[in-house]
């Protein structure tokens, strides 16, 4: 099976789906001739022409709003927000429009769009090329939100998102683009939206998270296994809305000790909801308080390297938290 970079998996998903379905097109700033500032749409305009790989004016609300209109008209647009930090002008279109179109029309209209946006710090992007905006959209009924950690899931979830009858926010981690590569099947397959996946089996502690920090957890888990004989059970949520409650509860029950990780700020993040689900259902099965390792509650993040490094999650921070929890 070929090994693909995470960004290549995303590009392949769009390319294959555009070949399969003439309703699918991509739009956004610089997605056409240039192929995107990260290269996620490279080659699509050459293959599919200017209309289906559409360079738009620099106006995020229009990118989302035009995509919403086209989706209601029966197309399957995939809109790119250049950085998730720049998608806030489109928030009204996403929350007030896309999320509510089916509901407010009593199922007469629907809005099958995908909005892709890179999240995460670690690329010296400063305060406005580094944020994780999941919590802004999380909890909005009508939206689905996915955030893959692997190339396999990136392709499979993007294909599922494009085929989904409802709006899907696809948060791809820019740090994963070239750093993460794994086996990706050729041709079509989908990863179901709303299903978490066990990345690693273990019996001592449970780590629940999504996106890039899971790779730090995996590295830490390998070291803890070797050095301390501690076996971590790691659950990748993959979809953060709707959350896979069953998988969360099963993973938590497996060890009774839960650590939740994400790069988005700690307060009001997805982790708070995951913790609440576990507390509501499993409180007396827990052997330790639920813990969270998240982005600190400061804007993500400063441009200067020591400051950014201090903000970021990494293997060592996770290893320390996992060890501490195991010893509780």
């Amino acid at each position, binding site marked *: 099976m070929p090994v693909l970079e995470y960004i290549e998996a995303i590009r392949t998903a769009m390319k294959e789906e555009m070949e399969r379905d003439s309703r699918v*097109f991509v739009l956004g700033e610089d997605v056409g001739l240039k192929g995107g500032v990260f290269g996620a749409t490279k080659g699509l305009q050459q293959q599919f022409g200017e*209309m*289906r790989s559409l360079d*738009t*004016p620099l*106006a995020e*609300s*229009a990118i*989302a*709003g*035009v*995509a*919403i*209109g*086209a*989706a*209601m*008209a*029966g*197309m399957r*647009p995939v809109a790119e927000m250049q950085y998730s930090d720049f998608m806030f*002008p489109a928030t*009204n*279109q996403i929350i*007030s*429009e896309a999320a*509510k*179109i*089916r*509901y*407010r*029309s*009593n*199922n*007469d*209209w*629907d809005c099958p769009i995908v909005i892709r946006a890179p999240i995460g710090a670690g690329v010296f992007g400063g305060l406005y090329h580094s944020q994780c905006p999941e919590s802004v959209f999380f909890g909005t*009924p*009508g939206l*689905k939100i996915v955030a893959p950690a692997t190339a396999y899931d990136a392709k499979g979830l993007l294909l599922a998102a494009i085929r989904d*009858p*409802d709006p899907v926010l696809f948060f791809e981690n820019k740090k994963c683009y070239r750093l993460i590569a794994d086996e990706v099947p050729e041709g079509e397959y989908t990863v179901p939206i709303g299903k978490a996946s066990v990345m690693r089996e273990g019996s001592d502690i449970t780590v629940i998270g999504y996106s890039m920090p899971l790779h730090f957890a995996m590295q830490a888990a390998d070291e803890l296994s070797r050095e301390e004989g501690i076996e971590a059970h790691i659950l990748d949520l993959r979809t953060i809305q709707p959350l896979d409650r069953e998988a969360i509860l099963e993973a938590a029950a497996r060890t009774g000790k839960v650590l939740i990780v994400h790069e988005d700020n700690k307060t009001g993040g997805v982790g708070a909801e995951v913790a609440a689900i576990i507390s509501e259902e499993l409180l007396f099965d827990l052997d330790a308080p639920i813990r969270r390792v998240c982005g600190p509650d400061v804007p993500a993040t400063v441009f200067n390297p020591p400051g950014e490094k201090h903000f970021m999650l990494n293997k060592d921070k996770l290893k320390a938290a996992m060890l501490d929890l195991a010893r509780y």
Partner: protein
Amino acid sequence: MTQSGSVKNHTRHAALGLTDEQAVRMYELMQLARKYDERGQLLQRAGKVNFNISGINQEPSQVAMAFAMDTERDWFLPYYRDYAFVLSVGMTVKELMLALFGKAEDPNSAGRQLPGHFGSKRLRIVTGSSPVTTQVPHAVGFALAAKMRGENSVSLVSFGEGSSNQGDFHEGCNFAGVMKLPVIFVCQNNGYAISVPLSKQTAGRISDRALGYGFPGFQVDGNDPLEVYRVFKEAHDRALAGEGPTLIEVVTYRVTPHSASDNDLAYRTKEEVEHHRAKDGIPAYRRYLTDIGLWNDEKEQELLARIRKEIDEATEYGERAPFQSVEDAFRYVYAETDEAGEVR
């Protein structure tokens, strides 16, 4: 009036390509919308319904713009005062009443949304919301889809002059201008954004904004439906010919308060309102039809009786109809699928 030209073309409407039947139908729709709207206000004041928002005085232009459109092919994105427009493209008074009473059978939203939030796929009316101007980029998206699929379809999107200050107006116009998309942007300038008059909203002329986006903009008197029709017909022809969007500023006046919960005399005078009420386009259009022999008092009485009956029946129906069950009000947040996994 000179009598040159053929018999067919010697009336204003015939010169524009409208038949006598269409000219009369336009009048009937203006009156229907007016009477519906007045009943809506009455029902709200009587405590029979919880909310009403009015389009009174804007009916002549709304009817005229609908008559310039193709109801089989075009897409419509009206705003919350567009009762006369939606009636003209096929919605019924009964359906409007069901929405006013918030009942399950309301095709717009099954009583989920406030009245005036139109939507009906059957009538090619795209569902709308309350945050103003969000529909403008949607119209551009419909036009983009039409262009991609090679369809001869035009999007018409309307909004108030307050909306012309929103980013979505500018972003949508600019996008459509760049791509020369078949969109008609309609600003129904009724002079007030709730309490804020035009003079405090913009220092320029709204129709002039089109120049900055590379397409034409026109201002037209909303009390002159035939002139409104002419301007919209030209815009529609331009759109179909691949010449791109048009911005049309319909100059009208909001004679009612903003909504049922607004006291307009806190920010404007009765005299100002009366001045504009006297310029009502409906009696003027009736005079036009009467002068050319298409209308008379007898027809007027017959029409008003017919409308009265239709609205009475619709009111009774709307009032008696059941609400959506509270359980069903939790449905359709997401698509529902059947046993085979197909979206219902």
